[in-house]
């Protein structure tokens, strides 16, 4: 049985012998020949289709096919996108598609792009929503990481009774409790120094336009949001990992990169959307009134630290997600909740209780920011029996989150770079 390096050697030896005619007079043709051979063979060999187990038969009951093309991006877990990570990603996407009721699904890896094709049926919109969701889950000490407009951490200003710090702390991630528009949040984040981040390892580029301009009108149409008024800013493109990608993502019809302001967030700082009132249908980030918070990207735990996620209900009968922890995850959970409880005890006065919080973010959106009652858990919450993630879940959205977490986060980030509808099976 040959190993990886033997197989690579065999492929290369075969190409050395096949691509170059023995006669030296043809030697100069190598550079012309290799790409041509490459293209021809690539059509047959490199393109790997993975059929979905248990999916419906291709084309049955469909009225066409939709094709989604994703560009793989690095993550802290996979700082260099590699073949193995792409294959794991494709496998998770395939399982998600099957779980969401997709049919006729094929997934193809070409270079660092993943192309998904699926039949159009009643489940297609749900499959489209779920398949490319990275499901990156992060847990933060809220007050220790949330930033004030001056860039200081909320926790550092609580003893001084700073009103904005108190508002952000006790508002627990809700919109309007010290939150910012996307432009203001990105601007604040862009002023923070680079450091090692938990959720992003690359700088994040944003392009903003001025409200009332044709560029913002085009962006509003493109993103399906109301137009930013004069005096506001609108998101033209982003977040992306380079200004070149920003150019590619510009809304069609009038916007160019020179018409906007590019802001760059260095790794180490993260912008999170405020807790939405409806988790199944959160406000669009590009909508002018959607609210955000800026945090130091110093997560205490991530999705890899949890086990066995399940849809459950809390004591009041509300849907939530129950999770267990890995050994390391359990230690980290107890440690961070202990730090939060100790801080709560320190900053609370004799007359007023100032609970401190634990923030849970999924794919850039705060889903819940529960408090840790320092009177009940003075040394943190034991992790032995897991924990429940509360939130504004419906049974369906809690089940969806549990499924995503159970199947695992995608090892790589995905950026949708193309979507088209094909009339027949392609």
């Amino acid at each position: 049985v040959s190993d990886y390096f033997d197989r690579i050697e065999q492929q290369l030896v075969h190409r050395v012998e096949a691509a170059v005619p023995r006669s030296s007079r043809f030697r100069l043709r190598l550079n012309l020949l290799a790409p041509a051979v490459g293209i021809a063979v690539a059509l047959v060999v490199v393109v790997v289709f993975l059929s979905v187990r248990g999916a419906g038969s291709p084309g049955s009951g469909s009225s066409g096919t939709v094709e989604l093309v994703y560009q793989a991006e690095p993550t802290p877990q996979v700082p260099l996108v590699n073949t193995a990570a792409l294959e794991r990603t494709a496998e998770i996407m395939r399982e998600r598609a099957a779980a969401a009721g997709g049919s006729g699904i094929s997934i193809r890896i070409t270079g660092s792009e993943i192309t998904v094709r699926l039949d159009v049926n009643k489940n297609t919109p749900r499959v489209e929503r779920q398949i490319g969701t990275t499901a990156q889950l992060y847990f933060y000490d809220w007050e220790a990481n949330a930033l004030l407009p001056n860039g200081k951490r909320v926790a550092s200003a609580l003893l001084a009774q700073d009103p904005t710090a108190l508002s952000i702390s006790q508002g627990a991630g809700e919109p309007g409790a010290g939150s910012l528009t996307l432009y203001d949040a990105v601007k604040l984040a862009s002023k923070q120094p680079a450091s090692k981040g938990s959720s992003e390892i690359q700088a994040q580029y944003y392009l903003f336009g001025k409200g009332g301009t044709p560029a913002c009108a085009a962006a509003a149409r493109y993103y399906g949001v109301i137009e930013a008024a004069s005096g506001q800013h609108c998101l033209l493109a982003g977040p992306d990992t380079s200004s070149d990608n920003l150019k590619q993502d510009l809304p069609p019809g009038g916007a160019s990169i020179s018409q906007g302001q590019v802001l760059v967030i260095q790794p180490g700082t993260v912008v999170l959307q405020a807790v939405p009132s409806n988790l199944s249908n959160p406000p669009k980030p590009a909508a002018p009134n959607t609210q955000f918070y800026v945090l130091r990207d110093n997560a205490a735990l991530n999705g890899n630290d949890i086990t066995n996620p399940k849809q459950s209900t809390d004591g009041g009968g509300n849907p939530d997600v129950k999770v267990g922890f890995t050994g390391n995850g359990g230690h980290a959970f107890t440690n961070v909740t202990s730090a939060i409880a100790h801080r709560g005890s320190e900053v609370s006065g004799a007359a007023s209780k100032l609970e401190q919080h634990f923030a849970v973010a999924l794919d850039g959106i705060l889903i819940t920011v529960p408090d840790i009652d320092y009177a009940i858990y003075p040394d943190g919450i034991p992790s032995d029996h897991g924990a429940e993630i509360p939130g504004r879940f419906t049974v369906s959205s809690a089940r969806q989150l549990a499924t995503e977490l159970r199947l695992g986060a995608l090892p790589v980030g995905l950026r949708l770079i193309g979507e088209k509808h094909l009339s027949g099976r392609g």
Partner: protein
Amino acid sequence: VVEMPPDVERTDGELLVAVVAGDGAAFAAFYRRHLAGVVGYLVRETGDREVSADLAAEVFAAVFLAAGRFRARGAGSAVPWLRGIAQNKLRESRRRGRVEDRARRRLAMEPEVLDDADLARVEELASGGSALELVDRLPERQRVAVRSRVLEGRDYGEIARELRCSELVVRQQVSRGLRRLRSEMREGER
């Protein structure tokens, strides 16, 4: 007289000339000679076995495409040239955030999946590669002497003629090189 296997007889430069002419066996010899060094370098730089295996495949695909541009210097070792390719591929991968695959795409190579045994092999190669890397860091005359005598098994007289010095000097260079290697390997184990 013992006949040497062909890959030991031929220098890197000679192997690469043969590769350009379509000699698959020459490519295999070059690949086996340098695989451990390349994998060892990549593992040290990235700390990731999967990424290193992926990048090593890309480096050798690039070697094939660039073989015609290799110009031998000194004793004809391709190590500095190979190191340049590996550095470029690593730098470009880090810049783009994904492992370079341009050479493999150009050659229409099929992606190969790694299993646990392959990852163990990466570690094995990397530890072998480390010793070779240490040899490559020796001063030039010591490096040539150690490589020629210890790795390639050539006799002192032949090496002395190539280096245009006496056999005694070659023996001294080999001895000093090996002493230095032993010392650096002890250092590395601490």
